[in-house]
């Protein structure tokens, strides 16, 4: 890194300390809930209420946001489910550990936003219709949507803005929903799974069985979580003086993990939507040179923790090419759900599914006192049952056996 950059220590020292005042009355943005409920009163749409029990968290301008703990409808993520399925599996595992009611539905499509941000082969009407169709499907099950993907989360907030402000669009989407036999519904809050993990952090810490206090983690906050419609991302005066989103960092701190600061935290991961698919040189180079190498030089963390499909994939997979080019790489990458599950004793292969990840993570497991060889043997034993035909699938019971 160049001498022309401000040293990271300076950035940390200059952070505002707790004491920063939230003033929701002075928030520069409208409260979307006021508009949602007004439109409901006028008969334009129906609001899906956050079910009880919920936890209230604070967002960027000091407003409160309700995070439902259970009765959730899990909106999965294309990338997580396709390439890093341990991410979603860990989210479900955590819910099961707490005995929370949830559904993992098949009446669900992708938000289609990855494609939209990559190719623009869609339009506002279609994007809103896809969102509302999914929300209507959630509502039909009596559950509240919990969004696994950072991009779905950000995109659905954009969709909300469009739907609330454009009467014509509402009319068109209402017509489409009528044709599908569905109502125009919209959730009171768009909730990302990492907000659920954050809301549950103390409960998770109470059941922590793996000490993580000697671990240093660098956090990559997902762009579409805190930049795209920024107002309802979680902020906390205790975390970075509320000058940066508290998501992920707040969870890791509750688990006793030390945070490894680095100066390019605001940079994206390099995913680029179109780029990761057809201009991969950009994604690889950005992930390695602007993120992983900077973390390595400035914080030398044991792990990178993030909370989105694209971020885990790009930061993890890009390190292979970086290594080939002699770059300073070699930091495993996981989601906060995986780390939280691991802290509570989840199996690294049956639950976290770490064999789908690329960068070497065995030293990290060893540092936690987990023997990766033994764990892999246990996983292979389970695979044998599938191979022999004794079982067709690994079940939740097998995962905890």
């Amino acid at each position, binding site marked *: 890194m160049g001498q022309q950059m401000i040293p990271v220590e300076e950035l940390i020292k200059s952070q505002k300390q707790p004491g920063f005042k939230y003033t929701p009355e002075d928030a520069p943005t409208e409260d979307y809930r006021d508009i949602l409920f007004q439109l409901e009163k006028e008969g334009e749409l129906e609001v899906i209420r956050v079910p009880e029990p919920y936890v209230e968290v604070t967002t960027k301008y000091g407003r409160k946001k309700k995070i439902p703990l259970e009765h959730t409808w899990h909106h999965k993520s294309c990338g997580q489910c396709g390439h890093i399925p341990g991410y979603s*599996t860990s989210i479900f595992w955590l819910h099961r550990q707490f005995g929370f009611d949830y559904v993992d539905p098949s009446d669900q499509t992708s938000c289609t936003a990855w494609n939209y941000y990559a*190719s623009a082969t869609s339009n506002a009407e279609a994007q809103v219709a896809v969102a509302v169709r999914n929300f209507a499907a959630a509502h039909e099950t009596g559950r509240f949507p919990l969004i696994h993907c950072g991009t779905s989360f950000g995109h659905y907030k954009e969709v909300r803005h469009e739907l609330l402000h454009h009467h014509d669009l509402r009319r068109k989407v209402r017509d489409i929903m009528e044709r599908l036999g569905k109502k125009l519904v919209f959730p009171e809050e768009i909730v990302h799974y990492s907000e659920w993990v954050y809301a549950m952090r103390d409960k998770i810490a109470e059941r922590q069985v793996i000490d993580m206090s000697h671990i240093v983690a660098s956090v990559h906050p997902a762009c579409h979580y805190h930049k795209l419609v920024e107002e309802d991302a979680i902020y906390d005066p205790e975390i970075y003086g509320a000058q940066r989103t508290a998501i992920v960092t707040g969870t890791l701190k509750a688990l006793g993990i030390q945070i490894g600061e680095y100066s390019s935290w605001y940079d994206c991961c390099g995913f680029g939507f179109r780029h990761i698919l057809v201009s991969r040189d950009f994604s690889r180079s950005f992930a390695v040179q602007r993120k992983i190498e900077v973390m390595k030089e400035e914080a030398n963390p044991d792990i990178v923790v993030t909370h989105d499909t694209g971020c885990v994939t790009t930061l993890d997979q890009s390190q292979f090419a970086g290594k080939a080019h002699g770059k300073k790489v070699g930091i495993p990458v996981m989601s906060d759900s995986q780390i939280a599950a691991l802290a509570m004793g989840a199996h690294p292969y049956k639950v976290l599914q770490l064999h789908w990840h690329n960068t070497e993570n065995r030293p990290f497991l060893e540092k936690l006192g987990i023997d990766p060889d033994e764990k892999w043997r246990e996983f292979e034993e389970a695979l044998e049952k599938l191979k022999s035909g004794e079982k067709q699938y690994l079940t939740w019971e097998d995962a905890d056996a």
Partner: protein
Amino acid sequence: MNNVVDINSIPLDLTGEKYKDVPYEEKERLFQEVKADERFHDVLYGCYECGVCVASCPSARFYDFSPRVIAQAVSREDVELIYTLMNDSIWDCSQCFSCDRCPRGNSPGGLITIMREVAVRNGLETAKEALEGYGRIIYKIMSTGTQVSPDMLQPNAFPDWGHHVNEIADNLDLWRRALPPETLHTVETGWSVSEKTIIELYLIWHMTGVMDMIKEIDEGLFMILQDVMEERLEDAGYDVTFDE
């Protein structure tokens, strides 16, 4: 940054030379289409030329690309420059929305989304080039309702991810079956999507005219998608044609 390699240092030609033969009226027509988008006034309020967006922009670090130039050109309604940018610049954007921290309240990334949509809808050659090799993804998302599926993890598709991809490809079926969540056992889609859901998605594509955009950008892909979707819709009792 002294260690960032300029991986794609094709300089952006802003002189207008390249597109001087395209009639001004055509450039103006496309600009008016951008302006007519309902979201236009949500993403652009003018521009201070402060460069905050550029400072945050990942694409600006690696390409001859600037969200400031785009916000400026559109604010000034510089029709010639907008046309050049619509062809040679907008596809470099990563759509990360780091530029949403613009002090003027702009979203240059959001403006680019709209410009891309117009480029696709009008079948600009440069849009086709930018999406070359991308057709299989459009096919996946539009026909299955999920964008990335495990069966895409093949070594020839991801050579730069190393031998680890071979291992996944070799064990794909087995490893998917070793996932406890029932919806994740599939290898052809990200997760199991019910038949009723897919039909509803196809009806959305039909009612919102998205297939017309596909036709502009890739006629072959349009025809394949049309076949698949019309047949499934017919089986479900819908008499729908995408070629109207």
